[in-house]
């Protein structure tokens, strides 16, 4: 493999990891607070759709991004309402939301664009940061990326700092580990959990918009193809920590990038095996490489006073 090809591989790994990373970090926060948010997949799909329609209708990808973010708010509120207020089974409600969003976006897409259309949609701009962007060979191939990717990195660093050094982070952690104590301290467990689901929805909306208007500049029916579930797997793989989740997402991103790289190198590996690879890795990851007592203590259990 030449350095040029390696740089391209690196660049596309990072690009493909970004949606997983955004969704994964949001999911991690929600799980830390005790809510297993299975609807990440649906949230991403909703925003991928909202962002494409917005960008296509106005011609402005920024407006598209905004519409993508807003379109997920009702979905997040529904998830939060079901899993906190109605204390519904979080897995069932999440899957229900995913089915609903899949149906609704497909239906709306057909109505707006007609069946099987592949309209090109204006996408988010790419930027090449100074200094690192000027490095020969890797500068352009690795660092010339959609600006949302850099925004994602910044967001994740901020999230990590907030989680680690502020009382907000402590409260989130406690809401998942010791909700009774949080309640006694006067904070609202339900409030914290609602906020975390909304935050997960916000991150998933960025992830979905990245997929449609950031990466491939079009929307296809059910285009998330399980990315949300990979994000959930990356949280488990990453042991509910920012660093681990990030590494897991990068690994899945690299596995996905192989699909495009190996054929370019003339290595004959069945395409299906490569498409399957991230899911296979995720299965191995959640199945064998993680210990069992690391999950937040009350993950998936609605809190009742």
């Amino acid at each position, binding site marked *: 493999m030449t350095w040029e090809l390696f740089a391209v591989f690196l660049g596309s790994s990072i690009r493909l990891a970004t949606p997983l990373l955004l969704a994964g970090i949001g999911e991690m926060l929600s799980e830390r607070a005790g809510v297993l948010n299975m609807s990440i997949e649906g949230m991403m799909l909703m925003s991928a759709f909202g962002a494409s329609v917005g960008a296509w209708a106005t011609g402005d990808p920024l407006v598209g991004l905004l519409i993508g973010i807003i379109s997920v708010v009702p979905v997040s509120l529904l998830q939060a309402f079901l899993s906190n207020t109605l204390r519904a089974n979080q897995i069932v409600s999440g899957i229900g939301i995913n089915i609903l969003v899949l*149906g609704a976006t497909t239906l709306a897409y057909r109505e707006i664009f007609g*069946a099987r259309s592949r309209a090109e949609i204006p996408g988010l701009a790419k930027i090449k940061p100074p200094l690192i962007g000027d490095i020969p060979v890797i500068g352009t191939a690795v660092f010339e990326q959609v600006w949302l990717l850099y925004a994602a990195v910044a967001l994740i660093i901020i999230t990590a700092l907030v989680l680690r050094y502020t009382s907000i982070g402590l409260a989130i952690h406690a809401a998942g580990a010791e909700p009774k104590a949080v309640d006694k301290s006067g904070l609202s467990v339900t409030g914290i959990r609602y906020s975390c689901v909304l935050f997960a929805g916000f991150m998933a909306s960025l992830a979905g918009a990245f997929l449609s208007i950031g990466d491939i500049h079009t929307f296809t029916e059910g285009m998330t193809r399980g990315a949300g579930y990979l994000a959930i797997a990356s949280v488990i793989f990453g042991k509910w920590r920012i660093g681990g989740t990030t590494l897991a997402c990068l690994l899945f991103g690299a596995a996905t990038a192989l699909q495009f790289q190996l054929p370019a190198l003339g290595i004959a590996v*069945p395409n299906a095996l490569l498409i399957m690879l991230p899911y296979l890795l995720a299965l191995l990851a959640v199945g064998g490489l993680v210990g069992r007592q690391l999950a937040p203590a009350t993950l998936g259990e609605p809190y009742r006073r």
Partner: protein
Amino acid sequence: MTALNRERQLFTAPRLSLRPTLLVPIIAVVVAAVVGVALIAMIGVSVPKAIAAFVEGTVGSPYALAASLNRSTVFALVGFGFVLANRANLTNVGGEGQIAVGGIAATAVALYGHVSGLPLGLAFVLPTLAAVIAGASWGAVAAVLKVKSGTNEVISTLLLSFIGVWLLYWCVQSTALLRKPMTSSATLPESLEIPDRTQLPLLTGDYSFPVHIGLPLTLILAVVVGVILSKTILGLRLRAVGLNPAAAHRAGISYAKTVIFGLSTAGALGGLAGALMLLGEQYTLKDGFSSGYGFDGLVAGLLSRGSITGVIAASLLFGFMRSGGINMEMVAAVPTALVVVIQGLIVITLAGAALFIEKWEQR
């Protein structure tokens, strides 16, 4: 409470009182259907025309009726598996992948297992068994991961579904696997058609009403699963593990064996569903042949709230809904996604109403 009492309580099936347990699903379906009709009106299709197309697609002809019933059997089998595993508090969401590997195994044995010359119906029984084994092992992977590493079966069965679906894609793309020999570049990525004798016999022997033996088989399995759950020690174990794994362990019930039994059986039923689709209706393996069927079966299982009769009712509902939906798309240009929307609404409503139902039952 004496031990005997406790045991008796474990054996009792969930109460089938008329009120919320039955009423809430009916309300959910009705509300979702109303939303569906509103959506049809919104996209500018004439509602009577769409409804006429829907009815036509469900019971309009013997063929439509048979297709709906065959679909329902697939959903019901996946639903039974879901209910059985769920008795042990296991959530099998891997129906999609289990159907896919079942279909792959059935096709492989039907085409290349030298079975078509066998007597006594073995020509279709062996491919069916292969599918059952394939599905069971797909379920067993999730079970072993759960027992060994405590992996949440929701995530593992979901990931296994994706893997199964891509495995199917691989099988029909590669001539080294199940793709039919390429004679030209226009050769479709699908398998050869399975030999006549490996196809499931039709009940009437008449292709204008092609209900196959999967329907009576499903009804028999409904009874078998029902009896296992309510009358046998296996059902008791599932229930005990589901209610309190620690207590079940102290009572000498093996957690590992129960989990493996629950998820493998669910997988086996999913594999069987794949065999019925392949050997009973489609005859050639194609990419995405299982598309959405596993999820519909899962939803049927969820809707039933643990009752086998409930699964049958929900499966019939979805079987007819899907057939009607397909005809609505062809005749009245209403996208089938509408049916998906309706299903999503049903699941969400029921998930949200669970607390209400429980409170009512406890009164």
